[in-house]
C-alpha cells in the first residue's frame, strides 16, 4: 500500500543519514521557525518566474504563492537549474515522442504542428479549455488524446503512462514562465468553475478534510514533515523527489483525496476536471513552472 501525505512516506535515507535531519526536526517541532514561505526569486535559464501574484477576487489571501516557495533550499535549487532538474529528462523524452511517426495515419505530432517551440508556445497557460465537441473542459492530456484519436487513428493514452506524462510535460514546458490565465467565458466554463469551487470546500472522507482545510486554513504550517503550500497547479506535471518520478496533476489530486480516507475519483472524471478548472484559476498570474520539482 502506498502512503501519502497523511500517513507519510518514510523519511528519505539521505536526509535521515545526515545528522542535520535531527536538528531540522526539533526546530520544526518546537519553534516552527521556518513556517513562512521563503522570500526569494526563481529564475530558470535566465527567465524570471512569477512565484507570487495578486490573488483573484474572492480568495482569502492577498497573494497566491507557488509551491516552490514552500520547499527546502535543496529542492528549490534543483528546479532553478535545468541541467540538474530530473524533470528535464521527461521534456527530452516528450520531444522524441513529438517527432515520432505513430499509427495508421503515418503522422507524428510534428507533421501537423511543426516546431513545438513555436506552435505550442504559451498555449498550456490557458488550459483547461472549453471543448465544444465533448461539451466539457479538457486539459493538455485530453487534448493530446483528441489528436491521437481524431488525427492519428490511435487509442487514447492509458492514464499516467510514461508517454502521456512525458508529452504533457514537453507541451507544458513550452509555456515556461507564461502566467496562468483561463478563459472562463468560453462555453460552460463558469459552471465547471463553480462546481470545482464547491468541491474545493467540500469536506470528504473519514478524516473530514476539505482541500481548504490544508491548503487554505493551514498553508504555511507543517503537517508532520510537510510544509503545506497553497496547493497550486502551476508546476504540473511535477518531478517528485519522494517518488523519484514525474507526477501528473490528477495523480496528485487523487493522492490528496485518498489521504482524507475518501473514495478516490477517476482521473479526468467530471469531479477532477471541475477541480482542475477551479484550482488552476486560483493560481491565475503564477508562471507555468513545468517541470517543477517538489519533495
Amino acid at each position, binding site marked *: 500500500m502506498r502512503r501519502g501525505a*497523511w*500517513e*507519510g512516506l518514510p523519511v528519505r535515507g539521505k536526509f535521515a543519514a545526515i545528522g542535520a535531519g*535531527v536538528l531540522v526536526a526539533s526546530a520544526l517541532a518546537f519553534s516552527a521557525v521556518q513556517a513562512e514561505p521563503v522570500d526569494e526569486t526563481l529564475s530558470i535559464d535566465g527567465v524570471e518566474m512569477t512565484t507570487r501574484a495578486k490573488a483573484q477576487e474572492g480568495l482569502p489571501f492577498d497573494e497566491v504563492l507557488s509551491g516552490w516557495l514552500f520547499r527546502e533550499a535543496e529542492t528549490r535549487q534543483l528546479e532553478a537549474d535545468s541541467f540538474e532538474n530530473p524533470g528535464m529528462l521527461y521534456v527530452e523524452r516528450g520531444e522524441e515522442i513529438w517527432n515520432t511517426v505513430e499509427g495508421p495515419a503515418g503522422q507524428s505530432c510534428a507533421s501537423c504542428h511543426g516546431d513545438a517551440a513555436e506552435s505550442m508556445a504559451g498555449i498550456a497557460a490557458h488550459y483547461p479549455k472549453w471543448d465544444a465537441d465533448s461539451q466539457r473542459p479538457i486539459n493538455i492530456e485530453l487534448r493530446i488524446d483528441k489528436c491521437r484519436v481524431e488525427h492519428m487513428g490511435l487509442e487514447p493514452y492509458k492514464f499516467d503512462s510514461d508517454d502521456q506524462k512525458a508529452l504533457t510535460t514537453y507541451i507544458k514546458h513550452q509555456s515556461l514562465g507564461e502566467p496562468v490565465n483561463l478563459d472562463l467565458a468560453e462555453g460552460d466554463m463558469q459552471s465547471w468553475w463553480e462546481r470545482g469551487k464547491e468541491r474545493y470546500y467540500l469536506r470528504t*472522507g473519514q*478524516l473530514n478534510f476539505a482541500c481548504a482545510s490544508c491548503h487554505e486554513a493551514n498553508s504555511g504550517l507543517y503537517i*508532520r*514533515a510537510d510544509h503545506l503550500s497553497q496547493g497550486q497547479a502551476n508546476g504540473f506535471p511535477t518531478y517528485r523527489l519522494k517518488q523519484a518520478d514525474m507526477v501528473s496533476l490528477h495523480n496528485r489530486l487523487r493522492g490528496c483525496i485518498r489521504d482524507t480516507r475518501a*473514495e478516490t475519483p477517476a482521473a479526468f472524471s467530471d469531479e477532477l476536471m471541475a477541480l482542475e478548472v477551479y484550482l488552476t484559476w486560483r493560481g491565475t498570474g503564477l508562471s507555468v513552472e513545468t517541470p517543477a520539482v517538489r519533495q
Partner: protein
Amino acid sequence: MKFAKTIFAGAIFALQAAAAPAGEAVPPDQVKFEDFAVAESLTGVPGDPQAGAEVFRDRGLGNCLACHANSAMEEELFHGTVGPSLDGVGSRWEPAQLRAIVADAKKVFGEETVMPGFYSLNVGANVAKDRVGQTILTAQQVEDVVAYLATLKE
C-alpha cells in the same frame, strides 16, 4: 474480568483493541457531551497510558504528531504545527474535557476545526468503502489516549 483485560491491554496492544467486547462500549452517536466534556468513560475500562502513547504515535491510528508537537516524543522526527503543542495538556484540561476533544473535537472547538473526530460518525462525504460506519479509533483507544494525555503535565 475488568482486571484481566487491563493487564492484557498493557502487554498486547492489538489484542486489547479487539478485546473490547461489542455492545459494552458507548456507541459513537450516543456519547454525551455536556459543557464541552464527556464525563463518563466510553468503556468502563480504565485507559492505559502506555497503549495510549502508541495510538498517539501510530500514523495509521491517532497520528497526532501530524498536527501536534509533543516534547515527550522527541525521538520521533518531525512534529506538525497545525495544532498547538500538547506539552502540559494534562494540566490545562480535565480528563473529561480531553475525552470530548479526542472523541469529537468539533463539539468542543466548533465545526470549523480541522482536528478529526476520532470517535464520531459525523464524517465527510464519500468515505472510503472500507471505512464506512467505522470510527477512526475504538472507544478503548480513545480512553487510552486520554489516559496518556493526562500524563503530559506542566
